[in-house]
């Protein structure tokens, strides 16, 4: 692999363009109906690594066959082989294979072979422990067996895994979007109830302002046009609610006005927040960051090398990306490839301590202690003290028969971080010297670089940028309308809010008011309290969507929607029970 020469540069540029196109597939650039296939692996793999990967393919097929034949010994042997193979190439887990095992387990449970299903789930747990998919499958198996308690327990465990795993970012984003949605809808309903309460007064004020110069029928028509006209505009509901909130401002109490202001601010903040969350998710799900996350967790999935190649072509000159690629090569045992990329990284970052240590380790493995010590000394004498550098230096000195220097270096290492040194000494390490995946601490840098590299497609991605100013203008206009209408109202009658006599109401109306105490609260001038009742009702109503507004989590067997729906039903039942009991007490009084 080289990076010089005009022909190679042109090829690299074309690769970059193709990789950008593939990478942006998940960043919502408007794709056509048929995209080109994903490019083959361009990531260099040594022969031994390839052989290991071929062995993984074979062991997997062996495992699948053995489990279907209920040959437990052979299946266990295949599983052990897979574990060994993963370790050989520096990884720990195979998430794709775990998903395959989970799928097998569901199939076995569907055909009532629960014993086999449990073995397959156990294998999934070995192949990639802690997956929520496995726990959801366990719940499905338990459910098929008729064990409700185990199913519930497994579901709870699955949720806990999902909330503690990589999926949590997406789930968290969904919950945030759900919260914003609830607050927005509650604010809109608050304006609606306020309008129901004071609508007549607004109409009277407008009519009284228009009717002396105009005949009453014309004034009425104009009032209807003013009030209902905004609905005909694009985003008509938004305009109508903003206008209504402005007109009702003057009739609202102080606390109600505070709620109106909160609603206006929410209309401004929600698109911005949604856009930020979406960009973060897009980035997290992009091939380069997917590969980064997998490498961080030691999980080798089928498309890992392709995704890593996308990173390399998207950020060919960025030191953090180079370091990541080099770390992967080193993890795979491809030291030569790692070394050449580390040297390139060092060119841009001469004091990158993990790279220096890794290069030193390369030479140490080859027995070139002078060269190794050269790198270790550079790392040890860098501005940032590193116990690992001094520790490696002590080993280098020792192997070069420089025992005094070795002792001094070890002392220095202990001085900087004695506890870590003790751990290193106690831990078996085939390389003896310490190596580091320094790129794993540079995730933030990688994300920023990727965003910069893809900035040109911001227009295609879209966002609330343009509408932000429109939203601010709308809020300012609402305030202006509120002020103007308030002045108008002072000249007109101060019509009191009509209040229905409690005892004259029908049963439907009475019970509706009891179920939704916000109605009475708003009539009585309450603001935040009435609004929070609406927030509660909206929260319960929208709860089924709470986990999925930012997209369905990529978890096989995800039953978050069912769980949220059950919670919503329970919450609503509790709420209604409390309101009905309170209502019956009111009836008796």
């Amino acid at each position: 692999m080289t990076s010089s020469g005009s022909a190679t540069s042109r090829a690299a540029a074309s690769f970059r363009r193709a990789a950008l196109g593939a990478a942006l597939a998940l960043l919502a650039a408007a794709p056509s109906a048929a995209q080109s296939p994903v490019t083959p692996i361009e990531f260099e793999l040594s022969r031994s690594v390839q052989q290991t990967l071929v062995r993984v393919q074979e062991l997997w097929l062996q495992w699948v066959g053995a489990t279907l034949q209920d040959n437990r010994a052979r299946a266990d042997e295949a599983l052990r082989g897979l574990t060994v193979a993963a370790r050989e190439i520096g990884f720990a887990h195979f998430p794709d294979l775990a998903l395959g095992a989970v799928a097998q387990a569901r199939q076995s449970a569907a055909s009532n072979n629960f014993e086999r299903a449990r073995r397959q789930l156990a294998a999934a747990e070995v192949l990639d422990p802690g997956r929520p998919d496995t726990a959801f499958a366990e719940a499905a198996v338990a459910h098929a067996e008729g064990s409700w308690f185990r199913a519930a327990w497994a579901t709870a465990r699955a949720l806990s895994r999902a909330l503690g795993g990589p999926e949590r970012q997406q789930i968290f984003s969904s919950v945030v979007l759900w919260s914003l949605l609830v607050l927005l809808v509650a604010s809109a309903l608050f304006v609606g109830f306020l309008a129901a309460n004071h609508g007549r007064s607004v109409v009277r004020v407008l009519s009284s302002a228009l009717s002396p110069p105009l005949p009453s029928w014309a004034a009425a028509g104009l009032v209807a046009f003013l009030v209902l006209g905004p609905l005909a505009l694009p985003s008509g509901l938004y305009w109508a609610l903003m206008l209504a909130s402005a007109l009702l401002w003057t009739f609202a109490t102080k606390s109600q006005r505070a709620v109106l202001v909160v609603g206006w601010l929410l209309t401004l903040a929600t698109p911005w927040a949604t856009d930020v969350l979406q960009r973060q998710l897009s980035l997290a799900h992009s091939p380069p960051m997917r590969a980064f996350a997998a490498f961080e967790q030691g999980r080798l999935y089928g498309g890992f090398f392709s995704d890593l190649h996308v990173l390399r072509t998207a950020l060919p000159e960025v030191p953090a990306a180079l370091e990541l690629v080099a770390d992967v090569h080193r993890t795979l045992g491809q030291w030569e490839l790692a070394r050449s990329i580390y040297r390139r990284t060092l060119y841009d970052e001469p004091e990158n301590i993990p790279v220096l240590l890794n290069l030193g380790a390369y030479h140490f493995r080859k027995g070139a202690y002078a060269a190794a010590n050269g790198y270790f000394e550079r790392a040890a004498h860098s501005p940032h003290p590193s116990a690992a550098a001094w520790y490696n230096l002590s080993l280098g000195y020792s192997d070069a028969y420089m025992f005094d220097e070795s002792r001094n270096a070890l002392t220095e290492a202990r001085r900087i971080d004695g506890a870590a040194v003790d751990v290193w000494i106690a831990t078996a390490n085939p390389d003896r010297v310490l190596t580091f995946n320094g790129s794993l601490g540079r995730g933030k840098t990688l994300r920023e670089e990727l965003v910069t590299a893809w900035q040109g497609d911001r227009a295609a991605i879209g966002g609330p940028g343009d509408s932000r100013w429109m939203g601010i203008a709308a809020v300012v206009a609402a305030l202006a309308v509120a002020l103007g209408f308030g002045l108008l109202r002072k000249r007109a009658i101060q019509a009191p809010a009509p209040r229905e006599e409690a005892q004259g109401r029908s049963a439907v109306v009475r019970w509706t008011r009891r179920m939704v105490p916000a109605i009475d609260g708003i009539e009585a001038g309450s603001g935040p309290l009435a609004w929070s009742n609406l927030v509660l009702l909206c929260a319960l109503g929208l709860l089924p969507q709470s986990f999925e507004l930012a997209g369905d989590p990529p978890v096989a067997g995800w039953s978050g929607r069912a769980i949220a729906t059950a919670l919503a039903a329970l919450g609503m039942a509790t709420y209604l029970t409390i309101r009905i009991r309170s209502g019956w007490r009111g009836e008796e009084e």
Partner: protein
Amino acid sequence: MALEGDLALFRLPDILQIIAQQRKTGILTVQGKSDILAVSFQVGEIVAADALNQSFDELLGEVLARRGSLSRERFAELAERQHGTGERLVDYLVDIRAIGRDELLESLRDLTYRLLLEVLRWREGQFKFYGGEEVAYEEGIRPLRVEDVLMRALRELANEPGRVDAVPHGFLTYLPTADGRAIRSIPNGFDESTPLEPEVAWITSDERAILERLDGRTVAEAVARNSGLGEDRTFYALYRLLQAGLVRPVGDREAPAEPSRRPAALPRPAGRVEALRVEREVVEAAHLAPATPHPLALALARAARLLPFALAAVLAFVIARSPAPVLFPAPAADGGREAYERLRRLERFGLIDQAARTFHLLEGRYPVGIEELLARDLLSRRASVDPRGSELVLRSEVDAYQIVLSSGAASPSGLREGVFGNFLLDHRLFSGLEEEGGVPLVLVD
């Protein structure tokens, strides 16, 4: 508006009703011959009452004794002990668990009512209302509604001597008086915008319902039963009609022969300075108000009652289809909405891709269609459709597949994936390894 005047001209119940209907907050002071009472209103409801010349402690003690919560002797003893503590009496009684908080609040409520009952008996005095943002009252007390107070007071005062002519009695019959005034209904009660005309009497719907049933033969109790309003509302309406001079009692006791002065249903000017102030503001308000809004405007206002429920239905429908219009409510946010929709669609594609890869791992090929993924339980039904509800179609080839929206629908986006580059699925990826052969070279030192 400054509400103040003389009790000889303005009936206290009417003043209380104006404050209630206008949902005023503030303090109404009433100065009688021997005492001054301050009644605190919070949004038109009574929350406290204090009498200047009566000790709060004594009043509370009486109420507690009457309610049976605490004997007079025990109360006196506790009040004595409380003096040295610096604590409020009500807090002290609760702290030492002499009475519960709820019982205390009910007793305070009772005390408030008793003071109001007392002032409702006054025929002479001055009143003034001081409006404000908020008033001080005992936290947690259930406010008293003016109407409830008046109805209850009416019942209690009816049995007192000297009030026979002012309050209705169940065993009497009543007749409308023909005094020549036009009678008009005002459904929601009086307020300061109601225009004052000497030849018009304004009555509420309850009062109209009662007035129509008074025939001089049916006793008031029977009218209450027949009207469906209940005794309290019937007697209160009858009381107001009596006060306005619109009805007179007949039956066992005839009304006094001398013409009674015609007390007003509303505060009415009588040539005094205090009264003029009220009249001026009310008249000004009447001139500004339009006589009657146009029926279209009224219909619009009435439709507003159903608005929140219609709005809830619309929002529920919109969110069920896609929450994007609500998350990006402002105009010109099309870019944001589209990006949101696209991202959700691509997330859905990602789920299908994951399922298809798993299928390939197990079967060695891609599924023929999405139905195969559903049958193998690799994909949920929900994930097999576009977030907007359009069916997704999976078309597989040898080592690749394509997802599009259902045929016939305009497809703004799709996905094409294959085994290429996937070391678990693409078995030709390392086919070069097999081609290398020969004897391995071993170097021996």
